[in-house]
């Protein structure tokens, strides 16, 4: 077996989720090649080459790859695909944008958000908002799949010394252009990689009240997430949404504040190790998955929590 993994990065830093995807690749077995497609991404290449278990790092460094547009990166993947039996990427908005396109170009079915490797062609993945776990067998000459990071423990970021090879092929689709982006800036840990997540829902009432959660989060070194209702109401930006159609998180500790616990929200956080729920409604479904439930008004409980940390 021979595996190609698409590295996730922002041209400066390798995203930690890449290490989780590499763990899935290691479970498959075989040689692992990591592809860094980006622009002026030398520091990412340096980090990539040090990762334990990576045999080769392929580098495609060109302006057309700067924003990881699916059109250009999938053409690149197709160009490189020949020697590989498996092509993997993280199940992030980047990976999910690119890999199915590459799969269709290769004439194969992709698999999305794989959370378990049973064999080279047999995998587990969650369906129906995580209410069922399917085991599927894929009969394709190449397996193209995205991987749920939280389902695999990361490989070591250091200890390897991969060979670095540059790729000269440059693909540029004339029908699409990056215009601009508004990326959230935060000093807090990234939501999907944080070991503690504090999330707020509609119960917070408005965006200013999220300040209460930020204060708790900063004492705990935690990331802050939200329910869809809180995002839709404009309390916080979309990149904070946890759930079936937002981000999947599985921290050591998840604190849900003023969140009712709809199945779509639970789908994104119920693999957390310890779950705390603070809600004034003792019937809220979130309590059915909480290890520790506190029935209380959040406007009293959260400041008290912050003071006792």
């Amino acid at each position, binding site marked *: 077996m021979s595996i190609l993994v698409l590295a996730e990065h922002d041209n400066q830093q390798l995203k930690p989720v890449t290490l989780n995807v590499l763990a899935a690749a290691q479970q498959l077995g075989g040689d692992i090649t990591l592809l860094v497609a980006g622009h002026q991404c030398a520091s990412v290449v340096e980090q990539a080459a040090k990762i334990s278990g990576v045999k080769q790092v392929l580098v495609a460094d060109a302006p057309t790859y700067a*924003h990881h547009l*699916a059109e250009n990166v999938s053409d690149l993947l197709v160009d490189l695909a020949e020697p590989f039996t498996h092509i993997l990427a993280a199940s992030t*908005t*980047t990976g*999910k944008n*690119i*890999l199915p*396109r590459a799969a*269709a170009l290769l*004439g*194969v079915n*992709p*698999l*999305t*958000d794989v959370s378990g490797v049973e064999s080279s062609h*047999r995998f587990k*993945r*969650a*369906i*129906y*908002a*995580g*209410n*069922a*776990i*399917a085991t*599927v067998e*894929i*009969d*394709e000459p190449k397996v193209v799949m995205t991987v749920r990071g939280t389902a695999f423990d990361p490989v070591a970021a250091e200890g390897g010394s991969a060979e670095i090879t540059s790729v000269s092929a440059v693909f540029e689709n004339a*029908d*699409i252009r*990056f215009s*601009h*982006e*508004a*990326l959230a800036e935060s000093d807090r840990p990234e939501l999907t990689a944080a070991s*503690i997540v504090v999330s707020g829902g509609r119960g917070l009432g408005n965006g200013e009240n999220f300040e209460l959660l930020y204060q708790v989060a900063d004492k*705990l070194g935690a990331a802050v997430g939200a329910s869809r209702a809180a*995002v*839709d109401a404009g309390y916080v*930006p*979309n*990149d904070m949404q946890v759930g*079936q*159609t937002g*981000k999947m998180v599985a921290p050591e*500790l998840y604190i849900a504040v003023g969140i009712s616990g709809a199945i779509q929200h639970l789908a994104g956080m119920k693999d957390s190790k*310890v*779950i705390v729920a603070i809600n004034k409604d003792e019937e809220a479904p979130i309590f059915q*998955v*909480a*290890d*520790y*439930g*506190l029935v209380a008004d959040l406007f009293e*409980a959260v400041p008290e*929590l912050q003071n*006792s*940390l």
Partner: protein
Amino acid sequence: MKILVAVKRVIDYNVKVRVKADGSDVDLANVKMALNPFCEIAVEEAVRLKEQGKASEIVVVSIGQKTCEEQLRTALALGADRAIRVEVDSTPDALTIARLLAKVAEEDQPGLVLLGKQSIDSDNNQTGQMLAALMKRPQATFASEVQIDGDTLTVTREVDGGLQTLTLSLPAVVTTDLRLNEPRYASLPNIMKAKKKPLEVKSAADLGVTLTNKIKLISVAPPAERSAGIKVGSVAELVDKLRNEAKVIA
């Protein structure tokens, strides 16, 4: 310009699905079905573009058994002009679905194809990307804002880090995210009118696509159950448990 919208019949989002006792699949007997919420958003966006004068006709397409005509009628009631159902008896794989949609697009020549970003049953999030590849057209997935200006499409996408804006040349494929719009309710007169709108049925053979299923469902299991937790009486007790029992905070 014509807009093609692909819609799927799925379990209603309020239903918590259960796994069959024999682990062969989930149990969909007598479960309430609905239009996939993301597809509803796609239909709504098409209707708004038509209302703005950017589109002349909205065609909705669904691949499935006769039952999915119910969801096609819903889309017609929301404002689509005509519907196509591609008849399949079993469930073909994702690549087949994308190939069938590509053939429909080839016949109808839409300027824009709208799909949901994800179906809430399979949670696949891939059909739009695959269709765009097969059509050799650009894609903008997870859209939260769509604007058409002549032959140019500007789309803001919800990405993990925030928002990204792309410019595409039409024809293009767009998949919808939750915040693109809030779908309207179909009015009773529109529901009545929808019954008279054209709904054409095609077979995969008509479209020249061979049905395959390269992904075999081996078994389905319920997710790991979480053991029942406890209620704590105070913040002090909570902090004590987190420190000394769960040991997750310092």
